[in-house]
């Protein structure tokens, strides 16, 4: 029999991350308190639903997959039974891929719970293979998962090494020795084939490799030939690299509809923590959030929560989500949640020796997110004058100070500075008493003073292109136009005055020409 004498592809090192029971691992990842608990996952609901996966603690008391929930409860009354949650499993599989992609640039998705990564050239970054294994285990712990790790010369051997459990590094040149040792049950053969081989006294791959491939194939079929090819190192093709994932989504399906904000916040916190752990692995930060809720009655609620400054602080992100939910609560109970985050790269910064120190970008972003959570996203940022003829129009943009400073102005040697207005938002209506068209007394809710000096009027008008509806809304706000008066179509028309009153204040007061009402919109201070 012509058989390859050695395992090929010298110098190639492949790692396999294998999560044996992905449904259990996904459940534990979402509910860390179940890590040591006795629990099982049922396929479906009700006492007759069969158990699909059983934790090690439950297995030790005699619970096995295939039992119904009622049977399992009869054996172990304190057994926790959860419904299997495919959304959680998908999120766990994605998290496993994130670990691999954070470690190596060449990653192959080998199916749910199985990932291959190319270790070639990573020695300079992480050190030897033991250090790589330690680093992979640390990253797996970071996302709350445990996996078997195998490192070998090709994918199949690495997979078998990972299936052994724990971590197993097969040194170059010792693959055949390992393969000869591998028990047959690790191959996952069909039960009939496995039983047949056992009857022949074949328990390890090495026993099988001694047999003639042609004879074995004629008796036991193509499966046996595949095993022979595996032992001879003729399997295990190159890695098929996947594009690095850019979507960070955590999903969960709830066993019953949630109708209150507090428990929903509890679940969202866990999802955010898992998302942030994944982002940290990839060296990214969380930007805008998209929350999709499946509601009772086959309804959906999708909302996008903007995050002013990307951050990985869970508390701030959760507060923003809850603020949004509180403003516009879902119209019905929530049955499933999908939370996705737009990943952003951390803002790079380069300090300059000759400019004053500025807040560190990461700390600034975290602070901005916390401030937005405290005060609301619309109340934090940079306030700029809007592109409008209204003197009080402003717009808010996200705070992002420029890196370079303008040249400093010439020092003002004079005893003069510019006066600044304190805005009153919204403008407050006042009553103005005039004599021969000249204001003489101003009276409002908390103002009552004689006019000492006055300048004006200075007319401002514009936004005549506004629709009647918009103009009506402005009028309702107290400072806009009334389309029914003055023959104007909308917009604003104000006569501004600067009035010094005998209470000591200098006010900016305007008369709305459409409604003939007076307002105070600022104080010179």
């Amino acid at each position: 029999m012509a058989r390859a004498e050695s395992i090929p592809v010298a110098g190639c090192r492949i790692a396999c991350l294998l999560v044996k029971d992905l449904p259990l691992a996904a459940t534990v990842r979402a509910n860390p308190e179940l890590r040591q608990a006795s629990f099982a996952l049922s396929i479906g609901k009700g006492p007759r639903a069969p158990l699909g996966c059983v934790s090690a603690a439950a297995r030790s008391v005699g619970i096995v997959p295939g039992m119904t929930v009622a049977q399992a409860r009869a054996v172990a009354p304190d057994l926790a039974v959860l419904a299997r949650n495919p959304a959680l499993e998908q999120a766990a599989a994605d998290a496993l891929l994130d670990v691999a992609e954070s470690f190596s640039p060449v990653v192959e998705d080998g199916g749910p719970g199985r990932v291959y990564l190319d270790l070639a050239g990573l020695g300079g970054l992480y050190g030897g293979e033991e250090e790589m294994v330690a680093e992979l285990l640390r990253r797996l712990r970071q996302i709350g998962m445990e996996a078997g790790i195998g490192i070998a010369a090709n994918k199949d051997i690495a997979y078998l090494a990972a299936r052994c459990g724990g971590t197993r590094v097969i040194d170059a040149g010792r693959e055949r020795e390992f393969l000869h040792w591998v028990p047959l049950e690790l191959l996952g053969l069909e039960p009939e084939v496995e039983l047949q081989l056992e009857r022949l006294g074949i328990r390890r791959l090495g026993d099988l490799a001694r047999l003639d491939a042609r004879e074995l194939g004629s008796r036991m079929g193509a499966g046996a030939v595949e095993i022979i090819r595996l032992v001879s190192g003729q399997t295990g093709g190159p890695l098929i690299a996947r594009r690095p994932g850019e979507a960070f989504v955590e999903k969960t399906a709830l066993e019953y509809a949630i109708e209150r904000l507090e428990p929903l916040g509890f679940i969202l916190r866990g999802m955010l923590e898992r998302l942030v752990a994944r982002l940290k692995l990839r060296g990214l930060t969380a930007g805008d959030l998209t929350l999709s809720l499946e509601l009772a009655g086959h309804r959906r609620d999708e909302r996008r929560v903007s995050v002013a400054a990307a951050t990985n602080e869970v508390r701030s992100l959760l507060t923003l989500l809850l603020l949004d939910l509180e403003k516009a609560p879902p119209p019905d109970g929530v049955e499933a949640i999908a939370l996705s985050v737009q990943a952003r790269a951390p803002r790079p910064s380069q300090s300059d020796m000759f400019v004053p120190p500025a807040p560190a970008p990461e700390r600034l972003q975290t602070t901005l997110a916390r401030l937005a959570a405290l005060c609301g996203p619309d109340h934090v940022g940079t306030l700029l004058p809007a592109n409008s003829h209204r003197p009080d129009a402003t717009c808010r943009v996200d705070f992002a100070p420029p890196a370079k400073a303008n040249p400093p102005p010439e020092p003002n040697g004079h005893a003069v500075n510019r006066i600044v207005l304190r805005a009153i938002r919204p403008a407050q209506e006042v009553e103005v008493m005039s004599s021969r068209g000249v204001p003489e007394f101003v009276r409002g809710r908390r103002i009552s003073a004689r006019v000492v000096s006055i300048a004006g009027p200075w007319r401002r008008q514009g936004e005549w292109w506004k629709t009647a509806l918009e103009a009506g809304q402005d009028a309702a706000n107290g400072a806009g136009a009334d389309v029914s008066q003055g023959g104007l179509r909308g917009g604003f028309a104000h006569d501004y005055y600067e009035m010094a009153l005998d209470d000591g204040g200098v006010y900016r007061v305007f008369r709305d020409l459409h409604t003939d009402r007076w307002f105070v919109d600022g104080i010179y201070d």
Partner: protein
Amino acid sequence: MAAALPVVGSVPLVAPPGVFKGRELTRKDRRLSAALAPLDALLEGGIPRGRISEIVGRRSCGKTSLAAAFISSATCRGEVAAVIDLANAFDPATMAEAGVELSRVLWVNPGNAGESFLSPPPHSVAGEGEGSDALQVTHQLFQTPAFPNRHRSPSGAVRSFLRAAEMVLEAGGFGLLVMDCGESTFSLAQSSALRLARMAERSGTAVLLLAARPLCGTFAAMSLELTPARTIFSRARFVRPDPKSKSYLKCIRQPHPRPLPQLIAEEGTDKALFEGIEIRATIRRNKLGRCGLSARWRSMVSIAGPALHLQAPKAIRIA
């Protein structure tokens, strides 16, 4: 004292410049200038960094204009400033005119604490209702608010005000933090003032508190009282501007409303014009220097003189 200095061989050890001893985290001589000559002379270079400075005074006393001068000075040096605006009174247009580089100013409005004279009294029912409109929960589900006290009351806004200031100081790297209390009449607990003072010292940020009356007590390094000495109105003769000229366009875009062509019916006649306020500042408290000194300056609508559409002013009349 030279006698107290340790001696190595025959050379006494002298502390190199920039090294200071003791528990002081920020040096007293690090100041933030207002770029306003009389005030800088009064304050021996400006307000101290790493300390709380208060500017107190009643309405139209010039405290916001003075804060703008400090913000302008900081931002033009390339520093980043933060304004915690309790009264929601920050006017970006006039701030930009005062030389503030707005892109370097972080504005935070922690909610309305019932500022000023025109808004409803702080503890009135109407005031609470206005503040909580955005957070009203109307649906029968999700009735438990996540933030039961958030922005529902003036005291909640004041708490957010202080918390926001602490967050800014914690972040570090800000050259100036302006805490604008408006005309709110809340009292600052000593523990809060102490915490602010310690955080300011740790971060090295100059903290400027604008209030109607002193709030920080002994924890403020400096307290400057402003009073308006006089209000300046002038009389000027109007001429019709050329609508195609750049000066006309500049005129109609400026935030202080000025005459437009349709208003100049009385062309050639004299009209009153608000020019600014003359301000008197007195140091009421100063841990780092002398108290009781005063200075005067003017806060003007236009430093360069009357607006472009005016002929030379005939006279300045003091109101």
